[in-house]
């Protein structure tokens, strides 16, 4: 699936939910199904600043593509990072760096999350972009 197709799929998925609580249920499910993140990787340099909860993000490069893994101590945040990973993992640096991350606003995440959370989201996006552009 191309990056555009994947984003479209998520936009459609979110459009199924009218109620915010249902969107949260969905994010919670995503959070719970995220692959386990090794404890030894929960280091200060992998911690994303600017979130009320703690979020760790790691990236590995294989055959020219970036693969992300992440964890959070808060489940909704974990759902959000899981969503971002499902979109951007397995893409090339160029693809990620060129993307505008506009789909996040389209599914209503940015507006409907509290300011601290929105900041957290911005930090998550910045970190992914930064990893793509500069490496660690």
């Amino acid at each position, binding site marked *: 699936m191309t990056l555009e197709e994947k984003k479209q799929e998520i936009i459609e998925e979110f459009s199924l939910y009218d109620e*915010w*609580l249902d969107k*949260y*249920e969905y994010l*919670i499910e995503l959070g719970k199904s995220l692959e386990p993140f090794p404890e030894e990787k929960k280091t200060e340099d992998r911690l994303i600043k600017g979130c*009320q*909860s*703690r979020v760790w993000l790691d990236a590995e490069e294989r055959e020219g593509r970036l693969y992300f893994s992440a964890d959070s*101590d*808060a*489940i*909704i*945040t974990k759902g959000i990072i899981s969503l971002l990973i499902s979109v951007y993992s397995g893409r090339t640096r160029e693809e990620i760096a060129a993307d505008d991350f506009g789909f996040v606003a389209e599914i209503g995440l940015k507006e409907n*999350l*509290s300011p601290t*959370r929105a900041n957290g989201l911005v930090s998550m996006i910045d970190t992914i972009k930064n990893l793509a552009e500069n490496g660690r």
Partner: protein
Amino acid sequence: MTITEIRSQFPILDTRVYGKPLVYLDNAATAQRPQSVVDCWRDLVEGSNANIHRAVHALAAQATDAYEGARERVKSFINAPSRVEIVFTSGATASINLVASSYGQQFVNQGDEVIVSVCEHHSNIVPWQLLCERKGALLKVLDVAEDGRLNPESLKRLLTNRTKIVAISHISNVLGVINPVKELAAVCHAAGVPVLVDGSQGIVHEKVDVQDLDCDFYAFSGHKIYAATGTGVLYGKKKWLEAMPPYMGGGEMIETVRFSGTTYAPLPMKFEAGTQNFNAVPTLVPALDFAESARDNPEVQAEQKTILDYVYTQLTQDSRIVLYGTCREAKIPLFSFAVNGVHHEDLALILDKMGVAVRSGQMCAEPLMDHLGVTGLLRASFAPYNTLSEAKYFITSLQRAIEMLQ
């Protein structure tokens, strides 16, 4: 006055969020303002906007009267002996900084000690840390008992002949337990040490009589007790305020200014440099009137007690929940708690979507969070306009949120 009538004075309480009725339980962060406060604020801006104290024209006289009238109202509200002991500031933080800086400048020296408690708000920790760094003094920390109360005996053991001041909260913004301030002050005074009380929460929930408490300083913010933002009070005993140097220099706080030397205005103006918040300070009058009428209203008090009993019981009986600040006889309707295996931020986000406004996180009390061994808590704090049915909706919503997250 019934609670329905009280609620009708707060138009914001009819707000709907995400299509649901707002249940505002973040009153410890800031209270809502009654119509009387909003009207007062607007009338001052529209009707008597002029800089206070100096000019001789009619508007300035009106503005000055309103401002000085607020000083009288605060004086009677806390039963201060004299109006000159009431200093207006921008809030409790500014009040505490004033004392830390000015009292500290005069009375704290290298090797001296300052005591704060572990459950203080950052605003009652950091100003003292800055002072201690500046002076080479030592900041000592008073522990809190398991039930969330400060213990006068523990304080007694911490005092030495180098202790220069003790700064403690009347009610912690996290634990919601009334501290025995009068006893704590007595212990300090027996050792010849003055005490500053952070009354940010205390002024809202307790009838404060500074002469009865015998505290040397009492600091609070206006916005937590229904007044305009950017207003605050420092009560200080005259003997200390007179002995303390000015905190900020500028207009109004002087007597005469010469390059050869400046003399300062008498109290309280010595500590009110620059243009004061004269459009906002007079809102303390209707705000304190409201606070007093709510405090003296049997129906409101009965509802508050019922809410306290109900929420306390619900939170302490639920095995998934850990409530901090459990001292039942000194508890106010402010509840901070953790839910096993569930992050406070997740709970706050879901409660928000259900219309319930609560606080999550460290609540400006990181040392206390470390002491309790948590990364943050969820806090629900009630005001006189909150009802038992709102408390019940909060508990039901909380249980639903926990089930979603577990």
